[in-house]
């Protein structure tokens, strides 16, 4: 089956494009998102060694943005080590500086050690990882969140009924590094296609703690709807982004670390105290 723009064989159906035209389409879409952000100065890219962050690191660098890669080693045996090795090689080949921070050095325990006492690893991992990224990123933080991640997050917030977690715009908050997600309108399948065509050395392993999470159930649900009704994920994200909910309560600052929070003590400081 041929490309919509030429006689070459298509590599993807939605949109139906050959390798050359898909790469041009994908890079154009990401570049458009990057341009909207009015970037100046260096960007820190949150990297895991997976396809999404590797792609955004590569594209920001390709578009001439000064980038630094920042990775977090949570300490998940048999999972993170391999992806960090791929990332080190990729950054070295690209000529980009990479800094790696670990839960063990920063919080005194690996995620595996935390898991021996606590069950909700995604919650602990996510909060602590965000805390480290905010602490060590300079100026602006780019993450590799794609359309699948963002539509799942929106749907999870809807399911939980936490209206303060709806996408909230671009307001700058003191002590919170501004984040950008240039892949947010690219489906996971598009990012994977690009990553494959570019031959990125990405790691395919799945986090062993992900099984049976609520996100996994919502991911499967959205994928089953998307295959029947293409465009569902984008519709969800665009609709959520257009919702302008008045946020409840005023932003406070954590009395321990001074990071923004809605409580007296932020989630990260509560967890750090809990796992001591």
């Amino acid at each position: 089956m041929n490309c919509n723009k030429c006689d070459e064989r298509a590599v993807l159906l939605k949109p139906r494009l050959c390798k050359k035209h898909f790469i041009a389409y994908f890079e154009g879409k990401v570049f458009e998102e990057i341009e909207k952000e009015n970037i100046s100065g260096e960007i820190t890219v949150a990297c895991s060694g997976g396809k999404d962050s590797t792609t955004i690191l590569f594209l920001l660098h390709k578009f001439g943005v000064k980038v630094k890669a920042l990775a977090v080693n949570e300490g998940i045996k048999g999972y993170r080590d391999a992806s960090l090795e791929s990332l080190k090689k990729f950054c070295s080949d690209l000529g980009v500086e990479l800094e790696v921070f670990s839960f063990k050095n920063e919080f005194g325990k690996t995620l595996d050690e935390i898991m021996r006492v606590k069950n909700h690893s995604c919650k602990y991992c996510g909060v602590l990882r965000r805390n480290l990224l905010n602490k060590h990123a300079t100026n602006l933080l780019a993450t590799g969140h794609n359309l699948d991640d963002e539509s799942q997050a929106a749907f999870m917030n809807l399911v939980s009924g936490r209206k303060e977690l709806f996408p909230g715009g671009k307001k700058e908050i003191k002590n919170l590094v501004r984040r950008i997600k240039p892949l947010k309108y690219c489906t996971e399948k598009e990012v994977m296609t690009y990553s494959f065509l570019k031959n990125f050395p990405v790691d395919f392993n799945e986090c062993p703690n992900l099984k049976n999470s609520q996100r996994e159930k919502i991911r499967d649900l959205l994928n089953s709807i998307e295959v029947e009704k293409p465009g569902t994920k984008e519709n969800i994200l665009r609709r959520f982004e257009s919702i302008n909910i008045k946020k409840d309560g005023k932003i406070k600052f954590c009395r321990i670390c001074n990071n923004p929070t809605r409580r007296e003590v932020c989630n990260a400081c509560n967890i750090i105290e809990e796992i001591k």
Partner: protein
Amino acid sequence: MKVYIERPKTEKNLEFEGTVKELLVLLDINPETVIVANNNELITEEDVLKNTDEIRIMSVISGG
């Protein structure tokens, strides 16, 4: 036909001729969640497979 599935790592030998879409239905895999390569060239769900092909099915889902 040899089929390599990346996640969970599986290798199958199948007697199959048909489209990629039909192969994914047979394997109970949602096409939204994978990309498929034949001899390391990306192919789409509409492409027709021969029994002698070597197919690699790669999950697009992030590791977490």
